[in-house]
């Protein structure tokens, strides 16, 4: 009664959860394009897209991807054999257990009319599948907690997934072991299946089962004589053998039984088998009910992501479907960490400790952004920085075992974040090269805003540069600035500048403008002076810093050996540090 009722409750939660999660696929919006598309339009586009794909040659692509990437997980195999083995063990073993053991009433006994869970091959197979899952779990635990792979991060969801599976598996094995030894289970079976045996026969059967089947009996103790065993075997064959194979075949449970034998009687009296049974099925129910909200939801979303990405293409597919696919991809992420292991910039975390640099962690942050959670300015800027600190090398997308197009996801998420209005200084680095190449995908005003905002934020507070007529004292005003230019040994060379202006004369940026000072603020030689005099306002406030193309003409040609380009680099570093320090 409790078994069925609790199952129905959990099934209901699971069903509602599934509906809720699927609804988010059509409701959540990632990226600027997705803002315009209504949920209903996305539902219709999805149905239309699926139907059209299924009745076209693309169906064959789907079939191939389903077999190779979904069932056999070739993408993961290509990445790492051990991880492939881990996952195939967990998912393969668990699926087989689910079909053969958990759903035996609906599947196994229909396919095999003389099915009994205690009969071979089913008894053996159950343990075989179990050991496969446990092997997979052991690899997972080893990889996550012992091996300590750099850049691989383990979060609460990963813990949960391993724990819930481990509880299900371990309780199952212990249940089997305790039932093998259980005298009360033995008695129940005797009552149910033996046809009116006499005292002698019963005793012999008990002796036979104690010796051969691992039952721990409170009444009798070996060694038993051959006659008793012979009679026991006869009764056994008459009443039990037909639906009970030797428990040695259930090697996990039998091994457990051997281990707990000395305390088996006590455990049986304490009703351990019953407790373990509750634990086992309740853990399964919990796993089921929580599935849509846990990382286990990937068992639905990941195949969809693989299939959708195999037949969709940014240029041709309906934007409504792309918007939907990107939300599915957030659920498809298994937090396996492949992207972070292969990320081109992950190591920079050692210097810039922002977790969002790791693609696998950024994924979780983007989920929070997309679900409409209220985020503080600091959180948004953190995610924005992580998302921008990306060289767009596509490696994450190439290696993702579930085929997520991370590259497009980053692009869309980045643009959405940049429009929230907080300055991001990384836009003033060559990391923007990719954004420039992609600008046809962004509205012109949206494209410019972050660039203007970052420059404005950096120049704010440096008023001196705007008041051109104000005389400047030619004495060292701020020692910290001129002595602070020392991140690299190059930068202190500005002090030997004697003002010949060669740097400015050879600068291609200066040469590009008729009135360079109006546009650039200070020219290179003036910036060297400002640095020498420690005039922060002038050094940090000028546009020249961010328009420098770092071609090193100035530095190469300086007769005094001033490392002008390197000084400009260093001033840029300092300007940003200073801004961040001021908050």
């Amino acid at each position, binding site marked *: 009664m409790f078994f069925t009722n609790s199952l129905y409750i959990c099934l209901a939660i699971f069903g509602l959860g599934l509906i809720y999660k699927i609804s988010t696929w059509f409701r959540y919006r990632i990226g600027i394009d997705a803002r315009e598309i209504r949920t209903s339009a996305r539902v219709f586009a999805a149905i239309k897209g699926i139907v059209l794909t299924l009745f076209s040659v693309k169906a064959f692509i789907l079939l191939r991807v389903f077999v190779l990437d979904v069932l056999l997980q070739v993408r993961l195999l290509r990445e790492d054999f051990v991880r492939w083995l881990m996952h195939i063990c967990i998912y393969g073993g668990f699926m087989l257990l689910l079909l053969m053991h958990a759903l035996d009433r609906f599947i196994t006994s229909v396919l095999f009319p003389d099915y009994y869970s205690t009969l071979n091959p089913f008894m053996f197979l159950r343990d075989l599948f179990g050991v496969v899952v446990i092997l997979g779990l052991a690899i997972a635990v080893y990889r996550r907690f012992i091996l300590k792979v*750099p850049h691989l991060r383990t979060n609460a969801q990963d813990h949960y997934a391993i724990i819930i599976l481990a509880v299900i598996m371990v309780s199952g094995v212990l249940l089997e072991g305790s039932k093998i030894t259980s005298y009360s289970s033995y008695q129940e079976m005797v009552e149910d299946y033996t046809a009116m045996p006499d005292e002698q026969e019963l005793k012999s059967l008990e002796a036979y089962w104690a010796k051969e089947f691992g039952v721990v009996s409170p009444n009798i103790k070996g060694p038993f004589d051959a006659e008793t065993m012979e009679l026991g075997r006869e009764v056994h064959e008459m009443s039990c053998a037909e639906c009970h194979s030797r428990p040695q075949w259930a090697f996990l449970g039998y091994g457990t039984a051997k281990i707990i034998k000395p305390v088996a009687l006590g455990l049986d009296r304490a009703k351990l088998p019953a407790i373990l049974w509750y634990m086992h099925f309740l853990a399964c129910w919990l796993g089921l009910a929580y599935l849509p909200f846990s990382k286990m939801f990937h068992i639905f979303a990941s195949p969809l992501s693989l299939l959708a990405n195999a037949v969709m293409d940014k240029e041709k597919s309906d934007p409504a479907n792309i918007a939907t696919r990107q939300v599915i991809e957030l659920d498809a992420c298994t937090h396996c960490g492949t992207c972070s292991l*292969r*990320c*081109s*910039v*992950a*190591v*920079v975390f*050692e*210097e*810039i400790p922002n977790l969002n640099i790791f693609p696998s962690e950024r994924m979780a942050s983007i989920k929070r952004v997309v679900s409409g959670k209220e985020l503080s300015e600091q959180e948004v800027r953190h995610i924005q920085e992580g998302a921008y*600190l990306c*060289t*767009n*090398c*596509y*490696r994450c997308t190439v290696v993702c075992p579930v085929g997520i197009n991370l590259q497009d996801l980053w692009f869309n998420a980045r643009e959405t974040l940049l429009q929230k209005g907080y300055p991001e*200084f*990384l*836009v*003033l*680095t*060559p*990391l*923007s*090269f*990719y*954004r*420039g*190449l992609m*600008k*046809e995908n962004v509205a012109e005003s949206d494209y410019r805003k972050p*660039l203007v905002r970052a420059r404005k934020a950096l120049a704010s507070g440096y008023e001196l540069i705007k008041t051109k007529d104000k005389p400047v004292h030619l004495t060292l005003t701020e020692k910290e600035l001129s002595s602070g230019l020392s*991140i*690299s*040994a190059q930068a202190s060379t500005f002090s030997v500048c004697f003002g010949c202006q060669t740097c400015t004369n050879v600068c*291609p*940026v200066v040469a*590009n403008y008729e009135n360079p000072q109006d546009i650039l603020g200070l020219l290179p030689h003036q910036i060297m002076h400002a640095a020498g005099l420690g005039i922060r306002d002038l050094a940090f406030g000028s546009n020249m810093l*961010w*328009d*420098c*193309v*770092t*071609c*090193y*003409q100035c*530095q*190469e040609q300086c007769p005094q050996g001033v*490392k002008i*380009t390197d000084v400009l*680099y*260093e001033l*840029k*570093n300092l300007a*940003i540090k200073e801004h961040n320090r001021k908050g």
Partner: protein
Amino acid sequence: MKFALFLGCNIPARLKQYESSSKAVLGKLGVELIEINEFNCCGYPLRNIDLKASVLLSVRNLALAERENVNMIVLCKCGFGMLKHADHIMKEDLSLRKEINNALMKEGLKFEGDIEIKHLLSIFYHDVGAEAIKDKITRPYKDLKIATHYGCHALRPSEIVQFDDPVNPTIFDKLVALTGAESIYWQARLDCCGAPVFGINDNLSMDLAEKKLSDAKRSGADYLCDACSYCHIQFDTVQRMISSERGRNHFLPSILYSQLLGLSMGVGSDRLGLGMNQIGITAIEGFLSE
């Protein structure tokens, strides 16, 4: 001759033809390449914001190549310049070196500074040598005028990168001449292509690119030749954007040196990725002598 091939981020994502053509040509010239999967960003894009972070990224690559005990071939000039710079800083600044090595130690890596970082063109010129290349050229070009774009970060700062004479470089021109093409003189040949500020200040970036393109064209070039991922994307993809955004057509197609050399060595145009350039260059095959 065995080298680790450093591709950086742009090439595998946006310029696959540079990788395939370089591999094809280096293979023909007997250069053995090792691929190190763990290579990461060269650090160049981060220099504006955090020198230490960019040096860390850069040096990790050097330490990886050191672990394999091989020198590095770099295809991109910005990457080349950054790696050279990081190598230089690590040798000059011992306290930074210690800090960076501490961070790398977590992965069991260490920078000792005993490998060489070489740009692809240097490999051709110094390691393979003109004679060996000449031997492999089966179909030299005829009447083809090439404008060589040297690329700032390979040339300067010369005391660090030590690629060629920064004022009057010749390596690239000599390499082009080997293929039978004529390397023309043009005034803007040592100037910046504008790529470092593309995405930051597009107008400035496009101005600089346009100046170079029109100067090369005025000087009689049929094609512009480059050997850097940033420069090439600038002269290819961004040139296309210039014509759509500004309505000005320079139509000076750019070809990567590995593609130019490969064609004259008889490598198939598919392996050289001739069709992958945004501004078509397949017509260059018409200049090949049969």
